[in-house]
Each structure stands twice: as C-alpha cells, then as structure tokens.
C-alpha cells in the first residue's frame, strides 16, 4: 500500500513538470497574442521560417543543423555532435519541457538569426514541428 502511494506520488511529481507538445504550443500562442492581437499559429509560416536562409548568425538556417527533414538525426554545424530528431513524431521527448524549449529557442535563435525570436516566430515554428507526421 505504501509502495503504491509512493509510485503514485512519483507519477504526479513527474507529471507536474511535463507537458504535452500541444500544451507547449498553446502556451507559445498565448505569448504571441500578447505581442500581436488575434494571432493564430501557422505551420506553413513555421516551415518557411525553418528552411529560410538567414544572415544574422553563424548557422545559415534551422535546417543547417536539424537537416531538411526534422524527423531525421541532425548534426551540429561546428562540433559535429549528433542531434536527436526535433519533430515530436520522431522523438517523444521534444516539446515536453517548457524550460528546455525556451532555452533552446534562446540559444539557437541567436545562432541562426543573431537575435532572440519573437513570440509569433516561436509559435509558428512549434506549430510546424507538431504538424510533421
């Protein structure tokens, strides 16, 4: 009985931090609406953003490291370290931890764009990732 209670409480403890990719997207859409009233996320815009060639940073585009197919393994442009797939359909861990999502947007937007991403950009990008089947 005590063991059951322990396992149950552990499950809840884990769930308190984890979110579904859809919840993460909803949160980003809310954030985008604060910057742009009536905003709705677009997977199409997200895909354009993902593939677009940028000039502000060291990496040319998101696809430089994550490849043209976000379901595939990527490779860091400088260190050549393997990067696990980004699309949740290929990697269940992606877009489940809001802190991690924020951290990687912060780092990678700087690396590709040379600036932080806007709320709408992040929401569109995430909508595209979730739309990949």
């Amino acid at each position, binding site marked *: 009985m005590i063991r059951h209670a322990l396992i149950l409480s552990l499950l809840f403890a884990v769930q308190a931090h984890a979110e579904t990719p859809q919840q993460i997207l909803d949160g980003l859409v809310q954030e985008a609406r604060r910057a742009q009233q009536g905003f709705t996320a677009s997977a199409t815009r997200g895909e354009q953003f993902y593939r677009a060639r940028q000039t502000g940073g*060291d990496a040319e585009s998101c696809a430089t490291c994550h490849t043209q197919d976000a379901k595939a393994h990527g*490779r*860091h442009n*400088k*260190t*050549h*370290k*393997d990067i696990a797939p980004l699309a949740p359909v290929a990697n269940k861990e992606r877009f489940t931890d809001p802190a991690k999502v924020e951290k990687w947007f912060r*780092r990678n937007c*700087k*690396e590709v764009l040379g600036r932080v991403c806007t709320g709408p950009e992040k929401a569109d990008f995430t909508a595209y990732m979730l739309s990949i089947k």
Partner: protein
Amino acid sequence: MGVTYKNLAVLLLSIVIAAFWIGNGQADGEVNFPMPRDKIYLEECGGCHTAYAPGLLPARSWRKMMNELEDHFGEDASLEEPQQLAVLRWLTDYAADASNATPLMRRIAASIPRDAAPQRITETALFKYMHDEVPAYIWKRAKIGSPANCGACHTRANEGRYAEREVRIPK
C-alpha cells in the same frame, strides 16, 4: 561436497559478479576520467558537444572558460547562475590538476605551462601525442567532422572513458 544447485548458483553468481567487476573496473584506469555525477553537466555541456572529461584541462582553463560563456568559441552558451556555479564546481573538482587526479590527469596538467590556460583540448600536448597516428582524411569523415567530436570514435566519451579498445572509427 557434491554438485548441488546451490553450489552451481553460487559459482554462477560469482562469475557474473567477477565479470561485471572486470568490465567496469579500473583495468583501463589510466584512460578513464572521473565524470560529474549530475545531469546538469551532461545536459548543459553535453547538449552541444561531447561532455568532455574535466580532467582533460587544468582548473585555470575551466575558470577562464566559465567566465566567457557569452562568447564560447563564437557562440552564446551562457547559463543561469545556479547551473553555471554547479558546472564550474564539477570542472574544478575533477580538473587535471585537482588534488585527487589520476596519473594520466597529472601528466596532462604537467604538460601545460603554468602561465597558460588552454581552451581547446586539441591544443594540449597529450591530445596531439595520442592522436598523431590519425591522418587528416579520417578527421574529415562525415560522421567525425572535427577532432572536437570525441564521441564519434570514443564510444563512451560521455562517461569519461577513452580506452583504445573502445574506439570505433566510423567509416
């Protein structure tokens, strides 16, 4: 004392324990480095590159590096203060010149001039010596790409293990 299931079970268990002990033991002690036992290190540092063993550089190198994370080899790798302090602690505790350093770590520390704080492991004398037989075309293979990508060949580099018998050079 005849052969009983109990005897056999004890024998089998002993073999398994011995095998486990040998497999994980210090047989390759010279090329195994102590690693931070904390997922912060693996996540924050190992997120972009091999989670390099702290013992590959002296503490002064790591201190300099952790003070310049906003420009970390051209990238902004800055951390929040609690993570920054935790990582720095692991790096200095297990640095090449730490008090509990292994003989190999001491060799690394001794090979670096006192007034130098190298930032690239590949520029240290021991790295060059250990890799002098690796021709340039191998480093350029797609799955390796750069000498910074330890894990491409040292299959257990993220655990601080660099034994030659665990090296698998990708084609």
